[in-house]
């Protein structure tokens, strides 16, 4: 089973996770930029974070045989903080980088006017840079948030077929499907979706434009949830080809819209060996 996790925050994960992910079949990831778990206080904090997503994290991933790309953005929560919003001016300099495959994750948190502004501006940035957009749907007031998100997308220059709506569930999948966007589902141990509910959604809605991710981060989450969904789909009678479409071909097709997806890791600096810099870095 080959797996592309289209939404995972590897900066928050250990090399043990990379090893386990590779063993489970993960060969490619996309890491969206997001909140740190605590507020940032300046654009410079974003720059260091972007540096990690454009340098150190792909390097770590390559040492474990996993291709790493990222999406960059001002996240919805910090769109409300005037200390952070100047990063919007800097984004054009970063969105042109080779391993940036979308603008994201953008969308709504508390559905404020500042979030309206940041979402519209960043959809425009995606359109201007030939990039698709990863748009998360809010954790609170989700269905209303989805409708408002779709309205903003419709008013933007970015066509819905270049947008991935994420963190969907049973209550939002219909409206999301009707919007013409791609459909992302995050599988979590306790919150968001779980693997059995995911199988039920796929039974109802099919596998067209469906992407499944672990969205694993620094909170309670599991980077192997993509594999669990693959196993659950097979157990429910779906074919290996169905699973391949959901866990590999759909994310490749969506992020491939950027024209920047590279799934070889031939530039892996050196094969793993005892002297590798990750193992030794902390010594």
């Amino acid at each position, binding site marked *: 089973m080959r797996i592309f996790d289209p939404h995972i925050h590897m900066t928050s994960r250990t090399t043990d996770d990379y090893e386990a992910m590779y063993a489970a079949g993960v060969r490619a990831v996309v890491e969206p930029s997001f909140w740190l778990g605590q507020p940032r206080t300046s654009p410079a904090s974003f720059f260091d974070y972007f540096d990690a997503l454009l340098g150190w994290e792909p390097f770590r991933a390559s040492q474990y045989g996993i291709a790493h790309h990222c999406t960059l953005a001002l996240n919805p929560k910090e769109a409300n903080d005037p200390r952070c919003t100047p990063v919007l001016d800097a984004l054009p300099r*970063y969105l042109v980088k*080779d391993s940036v495959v979308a603008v994201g994750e953008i969308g709504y948190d508390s559905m404020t006017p500042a979030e309206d502004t940041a979402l519209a501006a960043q959809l425009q940035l995606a359109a201007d840079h030939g990039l698709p957009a990863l748009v998360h749907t809010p954790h609170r007031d989700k269905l209303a948030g989805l409708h408002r998100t779709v309205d903003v997308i419709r008013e933007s220059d970015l066509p819905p077929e270049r947008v991935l709506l994420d963190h969907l569930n049973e209550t939002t999948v219909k409206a999301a499907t009707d919007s013409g966007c791609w459909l992302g589902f995050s599988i979590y141990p306790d919150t968001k979706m779980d693997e059995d509910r995911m199988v039920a959604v796929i039974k109802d809605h099919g596998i067209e434009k469906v992407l499944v991710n672990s969205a694993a981060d620094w909170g309670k989450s599991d980077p192997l949830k993509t594999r669990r969904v693959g196993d659950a789909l097979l157990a429910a009678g779906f074919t290996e080809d169905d699973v391949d479409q959901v866990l590999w071909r759909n994310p490749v097709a969506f992020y491939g819209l950027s024209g*920047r997806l590279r799934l070889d890791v031939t*530039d892996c600096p050196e094969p793993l060996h*005892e002297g590798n810099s990750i193992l030794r870095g902390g010594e």
Partner: protein
Amino acid sequence: MLTALTELTDGSPARAVQAALEEHLAGADRAWLHEALAEAQAAADAETAAEAGAAGRSLWTLPTWELRFAEAGRHCRPARGGPSGPSAQDLADAARVLLLHTVRAGHDTTSRLYTHGSAAERRAVLLALPHLSAHTPPASALALVEDALRTNDTRLVAAAVGPYAAEHLDQHAWRHAVLKCLFTGVPVDAVDGLAPRARGDAELARMLRDYAAERTAAGRPVPDDLHRVLALTADRDTADRPHVTAAPSEES
């Protein structure tokens, strides 16, 4: 790690680098390169590219040639696959070095591109430094080399220990750069001017012997490269090859 093409970028004239690079690019990518270099040349001719043009311009406004610099990795891909040819990284390195050379990048430009660059772009800036000495004050880019040597990204460490480091790093920093290569698995072949600078360096020899002792005490193998460098530290007049033992050396 450092293939022939990358070595070419370390010392050959730009025309030779360009010819070698073009040989490995498909038609559309070659056309992209020509256009990108023409844009860099125009920027250099107009003196708008680097220092003069940068004044008064927002840091976030991207001149066209800098956009080409950023996107080189997706336009310079090997036309033919296969393990024998240069890697995609080699080709992108060469294209970016050519762009910096063509635009005659000075101190502010290299610093800006490094500071806001991806790891691949930072690597190219480091590789280009020996080509840019005519446009930059002596040793002014040392801070970039030191930054790269603080990372644990072996692509950056390898690019940092080129001719520019050989010329400008002081002996203490240079010894630590050599040790870092051994520490992180960067082949010491990447270290420019290794033999002349290591020769007769008793302090480097001590550091190497201590490191070998530490590895041995932990039951871990001593890298072959360590023995190579240790042999190089022997003074020209010393006939005997320095000896590594498991026991701590006298100096430690």
